[in-house]
């Protein structure tokens, strides 16, 4: 079940079979800017960044992004910053892995965001997408196509939150503007 969503659409997801999610991955992929001419180095490179903000009771307590790759408790891991993008073939260029069983008990919401660090809007980026994958079976839970997505530089993508003893995901797909997750905080808070 892949949910292909347009921006602004929100949907609650539960693992098929009624179980709750135990491990999810947020993947982000985009196509590197084409090389130009003799001084190919001067091509404006596109750097998109994936971040995860951990909230406890509507307060941010930890964040995983390119400068803090692992949350203090080790439950959320960023695979590393990609500064230029990839082939645009659908592979993840950046990923954040969340081990929901090890998330500390007080954290009740994790919000995933995408930012354009180099400032290009999603209109200018080729083949950009972000998706949420259930790591235990490789199934895609949600996918957004970012390119051509309007004059925005950021997206608040999805939140994973506690429901009872398990977790649930809500796709948010809310466009925003900002260079890093800090700029997005005001836009994130209404979604908690």
């Amino acid at each position: 079940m892949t949910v292909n969503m347009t921006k602004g659409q929100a949907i609650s997801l539960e693992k098929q079979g009624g179980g709750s999610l135990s491990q999810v991955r947020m993947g982000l992929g985009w196509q590197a800017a084409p090389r130009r001419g003799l001084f190919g180095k001067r091509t404006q490179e596109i750097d998109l960044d994936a971040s995860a903000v951990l909230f406890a009771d509507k307060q941010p307590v930890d964040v995983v992004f390119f400068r803090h790759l692992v949350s203090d408790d080790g439950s959320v891991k960023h695979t590393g910053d990609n500064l230029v993008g990839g082939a645009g073939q659908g592979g993840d260029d950046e990923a954040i892995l969340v081990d929901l069983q090890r998330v500390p008990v007080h954290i009740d919401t994790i919000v995933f965001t995408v930012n354009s660090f180099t400032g290009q809007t999603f209109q200018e980026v080729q083949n950009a997408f972000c998706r949420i994958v259930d790591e235990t079976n490789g199934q895609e839970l949600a996918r957004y196509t970012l390119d051509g997505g309007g004059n925005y530089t950021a997206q608040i993508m999805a939140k994973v939150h506690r429901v009872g003893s398990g977790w649930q995901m809500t796709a948010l797909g809310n466009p925003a503007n900002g260079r890093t997750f800090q700029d997005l905080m005001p836009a994130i808070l209404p979604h908690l």
Partner: protein
Amino acid sequence: MTAELVRGQNHPLPDTRLEITVSAGHPVVAGAALGDERGKVPGVEWVAHPVAPSLPGVDVPRQAAADQRLAVDLAAVPDAVHRVSVLLALPVGTGGPASFGRAAAPYVAVTGSDGTEIASYTITGLDSESAVVALELYRRQGAWKVRAMGQGYEGGLAALLGDQGLERPADLAASILETERARHTPAAPVQPPAPVQPPVPVQPPAPEPAPAVPHSAPATPGTGGPISYTHPRRRAAAPEPAPAPAPAASTAQAPQGPSVPVAGDAAGWSMDERLYNQVWGMFEDLARTAAAYRSACDFAESRLDRELDETLSDYRSRVGGANDAARSAARARHDELVERAQEVLDRDLAQLAVESEVVEPALPPAYARWDNPVWHAYRPPAEEPMAVRLGDLHLPERTELRIPMLVRLPMERGLWVDSGRGRSEAAGLLDETELKRLALDSAVAHTARLLAVHPPGGFVVHVVDAAGAGAAALAPLVDTGVLAAPPARGAAGVSAVLEQLTERVDLLQMALRNGAVDALPPGLDAARQLLIVHDFPHGFDDRAVTRLRYLADEGPGVGVHLLMVADRADAAAYGPVLDPLWRSLLRLTPVPDDHLADPWVGHAWSYEPPLLPPGSRILRQVLAQVADARPAKRS
């Protein structure tokens, strides 16, 4: 290349003529059982043991010994044989250890006919077992493979043989062990009784009805349950689809929990590296688990504060019981969160404690505590280990859960055993001389370990003890003769040693920078050097202090290391000039102290120095062996 196997792992055998060597550090009885295609041993004549040591294609030693050799020719074993199990058992009544858990882990290696080692396996994780199936050679599609088994039996040899499908296993086990005991009894040097019956190549008996219970076939190794290689860190990576149905193995042990940690369960090229990585994995897991717990508690605390404040600022609720109700609700929320955090912490710590229990006995000398039996089986190593243990680390959440503090070799920084009080509480309780003595003692223990884990002659120790104040504590090093020269005394001695080492560093650096390593004088040994400085700055003039700083900065790059035993306050007269020196050294303490931070979260970890068991002579024993193994000095 040698494959170091972990339990359950198999490896192809390129050769049919094999030698299997066992080194246990204590006498063991070795044997081999030949099984048919169902894995069953049809009768006693299919078991090679000291009383009947030869079967077609299999020869086992005639008596118990610490080092055993079994010769196997797989081309010569009868076609009906599909499995050769290599058995080890502890002799009874010979004064040796009563169970494998009380002694060093046995090491088994399979060598080909050309002498190359094909595979090796250290049988770790044994506890009260007194017999073990070490390896299994088995036919798979016409080729032979070896599998590391490590299947122990608390019921001893009888239980083991019974599990192999033998009828009346107790009789055979008794005859083997009785013979061994009789041989061991010094009063009567009995000749080994002639084999009851020359073993004949037996035809497999007529097929029997299929056994009702599947015997411990290769598919069901382990201690009563399936071996789980699940690591706590990766526990959640893939929840098992369904717990595999427990195999109906008729093993002698009680079944254990579903996820039994295994020593050496980490990535790496050698067992050394795997254990090192596993210890670091445990270290990180503990740091992260504690971080999760602490942040949850902190959050609960701050939320409670905030909610209590809110109840106070709300005028309306001050009258009546609403206020009290709100407060107790806030407290309940706090307690509930802390309780859940505690539950998770307990779960993770229990998992780590189980892992630690498995890993700790399996550690090689370089990583082992001084009370680990592996030190009694110590032999000078052939190569340098990856790292060395400098002590234990623990967190206040679970003080009994100790993580070995492993430091990579060659060391990048010098060591400093702080003989001053610092801010440590434990140090404040001791008087100054006692603290100084403890500091030197632990420096000697570190030095002994470094000497022991380097190959013979690969590590040279110099000592500077200007006033001779450390003579008593240094005695183990001096008496056993492991030092390059007697401890240097007086200002002249200090500067002579420093000059010698400075020259060495200069020379080696020059050679390295210019790429002229082959131009070094032929007499220069390649050994690493360690300089122990006691009683600093006694006997040091300005020139010597400068040289010392030079050694601390430049030495580690060319294998010259520093171990300072000093109180920073003693050198206060030098002012801030020495600050870079102290900062460049790894500070250790002779008493427990929490001054070390982990690289992930930055918790303050309590460091505990390595302690020798009280009254133990292990240090001197090990040092004596180091001294013996040293290559003869060139004159």
